[in-house]
C-alpha cells in the first residue's frame, strides 16, 4: 500500500499490511497453535502422493478422481451441518442416521406413493429439520447433554427408519431427477462458466473488501496477498475442471463420461451460503460467541437457547440433504444407509479440517477439506488392501490423530495466547 492513510491523530496511524508482515504474521499464528487448514492440506497432499505411488493406475485415474468427489459428498454435507453444532461445543451423534431416516422418507414417498420429486425432497428436508428441532429443544430447554440426547436419537432413529422402510428391506429409487444429482455431469462448457463465476465471485468479494477497508482507513490485507489467493484459487479450479472435462469413461463408445459432477456446483452453493451465514451475519457471530464463552454470550443478551436450537436444525437439515445424496448415489435406501461409521467419518472430516471439538473455532470450508481427506482414505485404502481390519484400524488412527492435533493446538494456543 503506497499512501498509508492516517487518522486525525498520530496514534492511530494505520499501518497497511505488507506481503512481508502478512507472511510473518501467518507463521507466528501457526507457531502459536492456530494451524487452521494446514494439517488437512498437508494430509490430503501426502495421501494423494502415497496412494498414487502405491496404485498409479487405479487411484490416479480420472474416473476415480470423479468417483472420489462423489464419495466425499455425503460425508461433506453431514459434516458442514455438524460444524454449526461443533462450534457451539456440542455434538450430534445422530446426524448419520438422520440422513438415513430422511432418505428413507424420500424413497418411500417417491417409490411407494408416487409423490412428485420436489414435494418428496421438501418433506425429506423437513423431516431432518423436525429431528433437529426436537434435539435442539431437549438440549437447550431441558439442559440434557447433547451427547446423550443425540445418542438416544442415534438408536431411536434407526428404529424409526426400519418402521418407515417396512419389512421389505431396501427401497429402490428410480426418479431420474434424484438419480442425476450424483450420477450426471455438467456439460464441459458449463463447467467453464462455473469456473468463471467462482473465481470472479471470489475475486470481487476479496478485492472489494480490501478496497472498502482501505477507503475507510482501516488496516487491510496487502493487495499482493489478495491477488495471490485469487490466482491460487483460479489455478486450482481450472486444473480440476480441465481434468474432469476430459473423457474418463472406460468405454467411451458405449457411454461418454465427462464434465464436472453436478454435486460440485451444489456443494459450492451450500459452502458459500453457510459460510456467509457463519461469518457475515450476527447469527453466525452469536454461534462463535456461545462456543467461546456461553456465559458471556448470555450476559451480552444473546438468545443462547434460540441459537442452539437453530444450529441443531441446520445440522439435521444438512444431514437430510445428505440423505438425498445417499438415495441418488446408491439408487436406493436400505436400513443401513447413514449408519455404521458415517457419523464418525463426518465428525472426523470436520475435525481434520480444523473445526475444534471444544467449540468456538472452525469454518464450513474445513468440513469440505476434511471430507476430501476422509474420502481419499476411504477410496484409496481398499485399493491397496482388501482387509477390513486394516481399513478400520487406519481410519481410526487418522481420526485419533486429528483429535489429538486439535487438543495439542488448543493447548499451544492457550499457552501462547492465540486462538
Amino acid at each position, binding site marked *: 500500500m503506497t499512501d498509508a492513510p492516517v487518522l486525525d491523530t498520530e496514534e492511530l496511524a494505520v499501518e497497511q499490511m505488507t506481503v512481508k508482515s502478512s507472511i510473518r504474521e501467518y507463521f507466528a499464528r501457526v507457531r502459536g497453535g492456530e494451524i487452521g487448514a494446514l494439517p488437512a492440506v498437508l494430509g490430503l497432499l501426502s495421501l494423494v502422493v502415497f496412494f498414487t505411488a502405491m496404485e498409479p493406475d487405479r487411484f490416479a485415474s480420472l474416473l476415480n478422481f470423479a468417483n472420489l468427489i462423489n464419495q466425499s459428498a455425503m460425508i461433506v454435507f453431514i459434516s458442514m451441518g455438524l460444524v454449526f453444532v461443533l462450534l457451539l461445543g456440542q455434538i450430534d451423534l445422530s446426524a448419520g442416521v438422520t440422513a438415513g431416516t430422511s432418505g428413507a422418507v424420500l424413497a418411500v414417498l417417491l417409490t411407494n406413493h408416487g409423490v412428485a420429486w420436489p414435494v418428496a425432497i421438501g418433506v425429506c428436508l423437513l423431516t431432518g429439520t423436525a429431528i433437529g428441532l426436537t434435539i435442539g429443544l431437549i438440549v437447550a430447554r431441558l439442559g440434557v447433554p447433547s451427547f446423550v440426547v443425540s445418542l438416544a436419537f442415534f438408536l431411536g432413529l434407526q428404529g424409526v427408519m426400519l418402521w418407515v422402510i417396512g419389512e421389505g428391506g431396501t427401497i429402490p429409487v428410480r426418479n431420474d431427477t434424484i438419480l442425476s444429482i450424483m450420477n450426471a455431469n455438467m456439460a464441459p462448457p458449463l463447467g467453464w462458466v462455473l469456473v468463471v463465476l467462482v473465481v470472479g465471485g471470489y475475486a470481487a468479494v476479496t478485492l472489494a473488501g480490501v478496497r472498502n477497508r482501505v477507503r475507510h482507513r482501516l488496516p487491510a490485507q496487502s493487495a499482493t496477498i489478495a491477488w495471490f489467493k485469487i490466482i491460487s484459487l483460479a489455478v486450482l479450479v481450472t486444473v480440476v475442471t480441465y481434468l474432469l472435462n476430459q473423457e474418463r469413461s472406460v468405454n467411451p463408445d458405449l457411454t461418454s463420461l465427462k464434465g464436472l459432477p453436478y454435486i460440485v456446483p451444489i456443494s459450492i452453493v451450500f459452502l458459500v451460503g453457510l459460510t456467509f451465514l457463519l461469518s457475515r*451475519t450476527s447469527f453466525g457471530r452469536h454461534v*462463535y460467541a456461545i462456543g467461546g464463552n456461553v456465559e458471556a*454470550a448470555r450476559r451480552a443478551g444473546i438468545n443462547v437457547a434460540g441459537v442452539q436450537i437453530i444450529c441443531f436444525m441446520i445440522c439435521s437439515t444438512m444431514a437430510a440433504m445428505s440423505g438425498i445424496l445417499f438415495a441418488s448415489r446408491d439408487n436406493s435406501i436400505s436400513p443401513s444407509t447413514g449408519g455404521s461409521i458415517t457419523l464418525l467419518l463426518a465428525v472426523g472430516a470436520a475435525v481434520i479440517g480444523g473445526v475444534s471439538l471444544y467449540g468456538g473455532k472452525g469454518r464450513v470450508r474445513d468440513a469440505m477439506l476434511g471430507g476430501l481427506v476422509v474420502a481419499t482414505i476411504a477410496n484409496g485404502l481398499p485399493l491397496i488392501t482388501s482387509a477390513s481390519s486394516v481399513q478400520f484400524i487406519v481410519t481410526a488412527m487418522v481420526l485419533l490423530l486429528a483429535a489429538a492435533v486439535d487438543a495439542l493446538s488448543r493447548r499451544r494456543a492457550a499457552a501462547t495466547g492465540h486462538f
Partner: protein
Amino acid sequence: MTTNGDRQPALSLRGVNKSFGAVHVLKNVDIDVYTGEVLALVGDNGAGKSTLIKGIAGSQPFDSGFYAFEGHEQRVHSPKDASALGIEVVYQDLAICDNLDVVHNMFLGRELRSGIMLDEITMERQATETLHRLSVRTLSSVRMAVASLSGGQRQTVAIARAVLWNSKVVVLDEPTAALGVAQTEQVLSLVRQLAERGLAVIFISHNMNDVFAVADRIATLYLGELAAELPASELTHTQVVELITAGRSGALGLQNGESTEVAT
C-alpha cells in the same frame, strides 16, 4: 466535562431492600452516584455489594425502594431496562469471548448491521474511536483475538465495551482484582478517564490503595446496611477498614443500628 456543581445524581437509590428467603441482604440502602464522579463501593464479603449491583443492573431487581435515574423514577426489572437507561455493568469475571476479536467482543449481542450483513467497517471504526477516546494505547490491533491480550488489556476491552453505548453510569466490579501493578495502574487511569468524560462510575474494590487512588466518594456497606458515604478526602485508610470490618469508626458509621450520613 465534570458537572459536580449541579448536584442532581445520575443514579439515586432510596431505601432499597432485597431478601433471599429469610436472609435480609440489603436493608434500606441509600446511594447517589453523580455524573463525573467515581463512587467507590466497599464492604466485606457478604456485605451486599454484589446484590446491590445486580439490583442496579436489573438482573436481580430490588424488593422495595426508590430507583431514580436522572431525577425520574424508573422500573428496572431486567438487564435490558438498565442498558436502555445507559447503565452498564462490567462484571468481575469479564464476560468476554476469548475466540472473538476486540471489535466482536465490544459489539457482542449488539452488532451493527447493514441489511442482514454485519457492518464490520463501522463497528471497527467505532471500536477504534472509543478506545482512542479513552486514551487506550496498549492494543496493537482491534482485530486481535482477546485470548492473546493481557489481563489489563482484557479489562480495558470490557470497560470500553461498557462505554461504547453512550452509557451514563458504569459499574465496575473489582476491575483490578487479578491484575499486576502496571496493569492496575492502566485500569485505574482508565477509570478516572471515564469520570472525567462525564460518566458516573461505581467502583467496587477490596484494595484500599486502588479505592483511594480513584474514588471521589466512598460508600461502605456493612451487613447489608450503608455504614457511611463520605468524600474520600475526609476519610483515612484506617477509618475505611474499620467501617468495613465493624460498621463504625469513632463517630462515623452505624451507631446503635442508625447510620449517620455526613453531608457531602
